[in-house]
């Protein structure tokens, strides 16, 4: 089992009458698992084989190669399978309605099956995911992970169909989503990735697919601990305002809490390798008297029902304004990063709606926030859509011709955050 450690960053001092307590909890997992303790994994690669994947034909070819590379990364003993998606879902390998157990023979079998894949047909992503869910159910008890690749919009089923499938599959497996090219919809893949606790990213060029799939599969193989939740206890009279993962990407978890008892809820965090994530927890408490100290929340990492580490979020009321007005650096930083992601998404949305004033304002604010926080990755992507006149004040001009790729890259990666750097405040 991995060892988890937590650190809590907050200013526990509140002025009289204040009720909102904010803290950033950093959770680090050493990713060390004894071979015997490693959860048995199951992996499915879902490839879009709709007609558009055949134009140009190198797209489907690259997808086949990338899947082959991913399968090579799967260690012996892991259950795996490949699904081809069109307006229906089809198990490409194995074809007997179960998953194969990885070995040199089965990997070769999968590669042969992949080579016969051709592009043709429509897109119904919900049905692909539903089949993955059915196959994962045949190997219950394993830690299940899928990679979904698509190049287009979900056309052959309604939004409601997809929502129903996602509601049904939540918590059953984790799914990383990748969009290749620029004909897919960012909001759609984000919805899927978010519901299934995975990442979403854009692959601009088919040639980059193999490297990305390899990285995804290697990360999946490195996961040492599954079924981990962030357990938040709050005292009677207090409530959770929000729980949000803020690094490495922003993921809203507030609505995903599962009540354990009247004072405790579990927020899913899926699987952990050797990694570190930050969470922003905001609690509303009933204000107390000057000098009173209370425990506003206890945040613990639980694996199944086993507590692994915990952090205490405290509140102390003071009449010393020097103490109560100091905003914690980490809290301020991630509040900024969340606003940054929101500004980008709202800005791009406004631009699509033709509201250029709002778009300019929001993207300008995003430039300002990215600069302040040293989020160079996002800043670079922002420069693809705006001309920056003055980064410090957020003075920008919208570019006239924005490449679809630049816009989608910015949208997809808007939730990527940076941690507090020495230069950030």
């Amino acid at each position, binding site marked *: 089992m991995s060892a988890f450690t937590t650190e809590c960053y907050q200013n526990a001092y509140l002025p009289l009458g204040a009720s909102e307590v904010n803290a950033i909890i950093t959770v680090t997992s050493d990713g060390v698992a004894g071979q015997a303790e490693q959860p048995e994994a199951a992996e499915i690669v879902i490839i879009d084989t709709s007609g558009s994947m055949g134009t140009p034909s190198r797209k489907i070819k690259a997808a086949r190669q990338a899947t082959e590379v991913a399968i090579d990364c799967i260690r012996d003993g892991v259950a795996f399978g490949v699904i081809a998606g069109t307006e229906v879902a089809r198990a490409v390998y194995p074809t007997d309605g179960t998953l194969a157990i990885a070995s040199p023979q089965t990997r070769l079998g999968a590669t042969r099956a992949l080579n016969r894949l051709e592009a043709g047909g429509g897109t119904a992503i919900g049905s692909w995911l539903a089949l993955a869910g059915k196959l994962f159910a045949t190997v219950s008890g394993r830690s299940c992970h899928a990679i979904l690749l698509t190049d287009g919009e979900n056309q052959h089923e309604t939004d409601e169909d997809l929502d129903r499938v996602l509601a049904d599959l939540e918590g059953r497996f984790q799914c990383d989503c990748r969009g290749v090219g620029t004909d897919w919809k960012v909001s759609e893949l984000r919805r899927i990735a978010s519901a299934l606790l995975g990442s979403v990213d854009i692959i601009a060029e088919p040639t980059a697919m193999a490297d990305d799939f390899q990285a995804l599969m290697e990360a999946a193989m490195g996961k040492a601990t599954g079924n981990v939740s962030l357990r938040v206890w*709050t*005292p*009677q*009279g*207090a409530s959770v305002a929000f729980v949000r993962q803020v690094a490495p990407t922003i993921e809203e978890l507030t609505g995903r809490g599962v009540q354990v008892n009247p*004072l405790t809820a579990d927020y899913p965090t899926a699987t952990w390798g050797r990694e570190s994530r930050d969470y922003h927890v905001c609690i509303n*408490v009933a204000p107390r008297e000057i000098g*009173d*100290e*209370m*425990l*506003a929340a206890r945040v613990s990492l639980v694996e199944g029902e086993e507590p692994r580490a915990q952090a*205490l979020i405290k509140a102390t009321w003071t009449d010393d304004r020097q103490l109560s007005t100091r905003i914690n650096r980490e809290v301020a930083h991630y509040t900024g990063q969340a606003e940054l992601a929101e500004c980008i998404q709202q800005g791009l949305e406004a631009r699509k709606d033709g509201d250029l004033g709002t778009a300019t304002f929001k993207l300008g604010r995003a430039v300002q926030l990215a600069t302040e926080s040293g989020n160079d990755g996002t800043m670079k992507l922002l420069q693809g859509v705006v001309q920056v006149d003055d980064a410090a004040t957020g003075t920008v001009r919208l570019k006239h011709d924005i490449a679809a790729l630049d816009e989608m890259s910015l949208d997809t990666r808007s939730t990527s955050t940076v941690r507090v750097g020495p230069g950030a405040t």
Partner: protein
Amino acid sequence: MSTEDLDVTTQGDLSCPSCGAPRQPGDRFCERCGARLDEPQPTDGDLRVELDLGNAAAVSDQGLVHHRNEDSFHLEVTDGRDVVVVICDGISSASAGNVAARDAAKAAGTVLSRAIADPDSDPRDAIVEGIKAAVEAVIQVEWTTRVKRVDPSCTLVSALCRNGGITVGWVGDSRAYWFDADDASQLTIDDSFAEEGIAKGLLTPEQAAKSPFLHSITHWVGPDAPERPPRLVELRPERPGRLVLCTDGLWNYAPSARELGGLIDALPPGAAPAAVARSLADMANDRGGHDNITVAVVDIDPSAA
């Protein structure tokens, strides 16, 4: 006050002073309302602070005469069993005695709490180091008045209770007592002219009790304290009993171990440390409350060690 009026709770029936929810010894925060539990809780309009940690409890009371409480204490229970306790009495003829007592108790308490967590630490060393830390802390205390030109200072009595053993160290005239079914004894010998007079055969105990120098102490925690190591006593009780630490605000009204033990024996059997501490502080107030009163009571059960 009669013993029937006492809130005699038994150990294990602890509750949160804020919401009344049940709690476990050693809990730092209430599991229902989140209130801090291991901090002294002010009662009676801030004239008294109480801390009930189950097998150990302390009460510090301003008394009826002094305008502020210059006593201070630090009490900690770890693993629901091991206990660290420090009591300091700020010397009121010096300036900032209350600050000196508070900082000294905190500094010594911090050292002892570190030591109790380390099974290899020597309790005697820890007590001595704790008192050194208290001296260092008091040296930092600033004068609130320079009129008298007396450095801030205080007394200190501390105890570390671990694995059935008790180590007590002290400076000045705050005391420690041990009570069990067969025994009532004073563990400490005051660093005072009176005690030194008795020890040298110059005074009888009766004369000493009436001596105007009864409260003139010969050793204290402060920058101008005599360079001399604190005194230590170790005890390994064979029977369950009670360790009581207190300031002179209490023992003035029951100086001998026999008298003090008699007061405790008058309480219902099985009275929790918190109830014992409260009733002793109340007794001192009933008899005049001429000084600040601080008392800590620790239940010791060697069979549980």
